[in-house]
Structure formats: C-alpha cells, structure tokens
C-alpha cells in the first residue's frame, strides 16, 4: 500500500468517526425533543407536580435545579478558581504539590453515587440538617471542585509567560499581575470549564438523591424571605431537582402519565442546558472583548 492510499484511508476513518459522533448527538436530540416537546406546555412548566393524578407539572423541580446550580457555583467557583491559582502560581514544585494534584485527580474520578453517600454522612447526618439544598450543593461542590481546579490551573498555565514577565518587569506585584493580566487572559478557558461543570451539576441526580432529597415542600413564590420554610430561596429545605425527578417518577411514580412527565422533563433539562451554555458563552465573549478591547 503506498502512502497516498494510506493517507486517504486515514482521512476516511476520521471523517467516519466525526460522522458517528454527529449522528449520535442528532439522534439523541431528535429522540428527546420529538418525545418531549409535545408534552411541554405553559401549564407543565408552571404547575406543581402531582403525586397521584395525571397532569402535574415541574415548576418546583425546574426552579430547584437552577437554584441548586446557583448555590453550587457560588461555592465551587471561588474555591475552584482559587485552587487553580494556587496550583499554577504559588505551589512550589515538589512532593506536596504532586500529592495535592493526585488528590484532585482521584476526587475527580470518584463515582457520583459515592459522593452522594459521603454527602449523606457529612452534610445530612453529621450536621443534622436533614435533606437540604445546601447539603446538595456541598455534595455537588465536592464533585465539581476538582474539575474547576484542573481547568483553572491549565488555563492559567497556558497564559504566555511573556505577559506575566511584562507585568512584573513594570514593578507590579505578583497578586496584582494575577488579577489584572493573568486571570483576564485565562478567563475564556476558565469559563468554558465552568460551563462544562455547570452542565454536569444541572444534570446530576445520583449525588443529590441522599443530600437534597426526593421531595419539595409547598413553596410560596411570593415569599422572598430566605429563612422562611415556604420560601423557595430557603437553602435549608429539601429540594428535588429535575434530574432527580426524572429518576423518581420512573422508579417510584404513582402517576398515570409517567411517560409524558419524564420525557417532557428530559426535554426541558436538555433545552435548559443548551440555553445556558449558549448564554454563558455569549456573555463570556462579551466580557472578554471588553477587557481585551477587541471588536
């Protein structure tokens, strides 16, 4: 076989692989959307779920998903980016740093159900909180922190050394250089990492089963006092998220329209992830353009 044919075969194989990936994605979306979209209506999105009757909605679950995501990111992003800064800029190469890095990697590869069990011990039983949004968010933080640390570290390391030197050579301190030169340059990559992590959080069920629970108390959306039991903003209440809801109606649902509710929920989940991915990317590129002064 001459080199030309082998080159052609190689290109052919790679095109085929690309095609397979696209096919999987398209058919998955087709299946979810075709099955799900017909079940989505305004009522479905705004009605509370029902335990026994048909026609329940997913209002609380949808809200819970976004709220848990928000709380998780509020904890995980500062910690994760801080960890990344430490690993990339302050940690001296050596045994300690290597150990930290292996810990981060092991943490990243733990199955989410195991983290759920750990969360049950730590954030539910030990703290005595019971099933809470905060417990769920902390479990999800454990699960996402390594990803954000890793991505931030890599992003910061890939900022050209020349930029850092330029800033230091002008008599600017290390920390100010990190804040004003390194982080802005690393920002797009860090943002992509955070979006990926957010997608994982949004779709995560296993880690939440034992931490945020399978139920939601009656919520009064007019009550904005975060310390009130019926307020949706209360972080010490149990909260069933959309992903958990899909699992629970399928495994233990008593409602007659399990099929409709779960396929509708799945479609909402997928569309939500898509929307905030696009939104986050758009906002990110706006911020990036603003700080780099490119049009």
């Amino acid at each position, binding site marked *: 076989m001459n080199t030309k044919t082998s080159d052609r075969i190689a290109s052919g194989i790679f095109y085929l692989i690309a095609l397979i990936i696209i096919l999987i994605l398209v058919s998955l979306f087709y299946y979810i959307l075709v099955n799900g979209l017909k079940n989505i209506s305004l009522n479905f999105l705004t009605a509370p779920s029902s335990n026994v009757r048909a026609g329940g909605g997913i209002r609380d679950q949808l809200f819970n998903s976004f709220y848990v995501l928000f709380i998780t990111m509020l904890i995980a992003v500062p910690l994760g980016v801080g960890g990344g800064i430490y690993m990339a800029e302050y940690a*001296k*190469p050596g045994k300690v740093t290597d150990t930290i890095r292996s810990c981060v990697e092991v943490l990243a590869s733990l199955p989410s159900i195991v983290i759920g069990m750990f969360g049950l011990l730590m954030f539910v039983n030990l703290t005595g909180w019971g099933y809470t949004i905060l417990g769920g968010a902390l479990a999800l933080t454990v699960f996402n922190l390594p990803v954000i640390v890793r991505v931030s570290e890599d992003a910061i390391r890939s900022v*050209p050394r*020349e*930029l*850092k*030197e*330029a*800033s*230091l*050579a*002008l*008599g*600017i*301190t290390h920390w*100010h250089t990190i804040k*004003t*030169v390194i982080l*802005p*340059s690393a920002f797009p990559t860090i943002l992509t990492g955070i979006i990926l992590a957010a997608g994982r959080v949004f779709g995560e069920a296993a880690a939440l089963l034992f931490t945020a629970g399978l139920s939601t108390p009656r919520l009064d959306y007019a009550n904005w006092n975060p310390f009130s039991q019926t307020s949706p903003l209360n972080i010490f209440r149990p909260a069933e998220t959309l992903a958990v809801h899909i699992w629970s109606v399928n495994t233990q649902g008593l409602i007659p329209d399990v099929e409709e509710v779960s396929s509708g929920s799945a479609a909402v989940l997928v569309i939500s992830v898509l929307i905030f991915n696009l939104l986050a990317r758009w906002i990110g590129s706006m911020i990036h353009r603003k*700080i*780099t*002064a*490119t*049009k």
Partner: protein
Amino acid sequence: MVTATKERPVESKTVQSNRKQNILNVKNLEIFYGEKRAVNGISLDIEKNSVTALIGPSGCGKSTFLRSINRMNDLIPGARAKGEILYEDINILSDQINVVALRKEIGMVFQKPNPFPKSIYENITHALKFAGIRKKSELDKIVEESLRKAALWEEVKDRLQKSSLSLSGGQQQRLCIARTIAMKPTVMLLDEPSSALDPISNSKVEDLIVELKKDYSIIIVTHNMQQASRISDKTAFFLSGDLIEYDLTEKIFTNPSVKKTEEYISGRFG
C-alpha cells in the same frame, strides 16, 4: 515632568560618593541555575546615560546577566546569584530589596513584543494605575508623553482605545518601550528588542534607543553586531559565562585587545 510615585528600593543615601557617573557597579557576579553556573564571577561598571551593548554567542550568559539586574531571574526556580550589583550604592541582589520597587527603577523590554491584550491606552496606564496615579488628566498626559518619546504617538493617537494586538510587531515593541518609559525608570534593560522585527521597524527602534539615552541608562543584549556598533557607547563581550572584554564600542569593533573578541565580531564563530 510628571512625578510618578518613586520609591527607592531602599532609602537612598545622598549619592555623592558616586561622582564617576556610573549607574551600576557589578562585582564578582556569579549566577547559577541549580548546580550549573551560567555567569562566572564578572565585574564591570555601567555608565550613566549611555548605551551599553552585551554581545556574545547564544548561551554565553549575557541575557542571564541582564535579567539579574532587575531580578527577573527570581521567577526561574533554582536560579540564584552571588556577588554584588550596586545601584546607588545598594546591593540589589540582597534579600531585603523590595523587588517591586526596584523594577520600577530598572525597567525591561523583552525580545518578543509582549503588549498586554488590552487597549493601547491601558497598556501604558496599567502600571501607572498600580503605582497610584488615578487622575484621568494626568494619565492622559503621561500616555501622550511616553508614546511621543517612543515615536509612536503620531501612528496611534487616533486609536488609543483599540486593542494593542491590532498593531504591527514593530509598533507593539515601541508600545512596550513606551509603557516602560511611562514608569520613568533610570535604567532600561533591552533583551534583543529588535530581533523579532523587520528591518524598517528595527531601524526605528534603534533610532529610539539612541534618542532615549539622553534620559536613561540603557543596557542592550544583541546578536546583531552592526546594531551594537551603531548604537552603543560601550560593549561587553561574553563567552561561556565569562566577561572576555569590556571597552568602548569603537575600540571593541576596530581594535579589540583579546583575540577571541576579534574572532567573534568578525564572524569566525558564534
């Protein structure tokens, strides 16, 4: 003259002992990377308001020496220096030196143009703001002043808010020089500042360097012999970490006293 907040690295003594107009006195400087010695105990004096060129083949220690003058080697793990570099009678290699303040006095321009990915204006104000200058009018004034000194003002005055990355390589390098000038250093270290530039940009940068020596003491590392002979007053020739010869540029290029120097500048090795 705008007075940028100038802290001396250490409280400066009245500089009366320094009548001989040297800005830096290097004594027995040795620099190590881990176990490897890159600079072998060199001693030389750098004159004030002059251009000093450092020449020599790659890996001879000239850039290492240059980077030690504003302590940029601190960033390299395992790098350490012995000996003394006296700046206003203070050993800047001492642990007690405030490196941040030192780098305001001794600025540096690098081989590859490295503007910040920000606007042209912000490239210059970045360090000024950190130094505590906040007034818009004052910032505007320094930006114009330093861009003029770097011979870039006419080319960019209408697009100060555009990204610095929209400039050509030569313009970017002059912007880097401008932002260093804006800090009003006393010494400027130039590490092959025009090696990545085309001939026209190169000659603009050279003209600029000659112009700048009125206000600053300049030390330049260069691989370009013509450049060294055109712009410098004194030339130091380095080889394998040793300072082989240090003299007036004219002498080095017409009648060097060491044979190695002659061989190098005539292109027989290196």
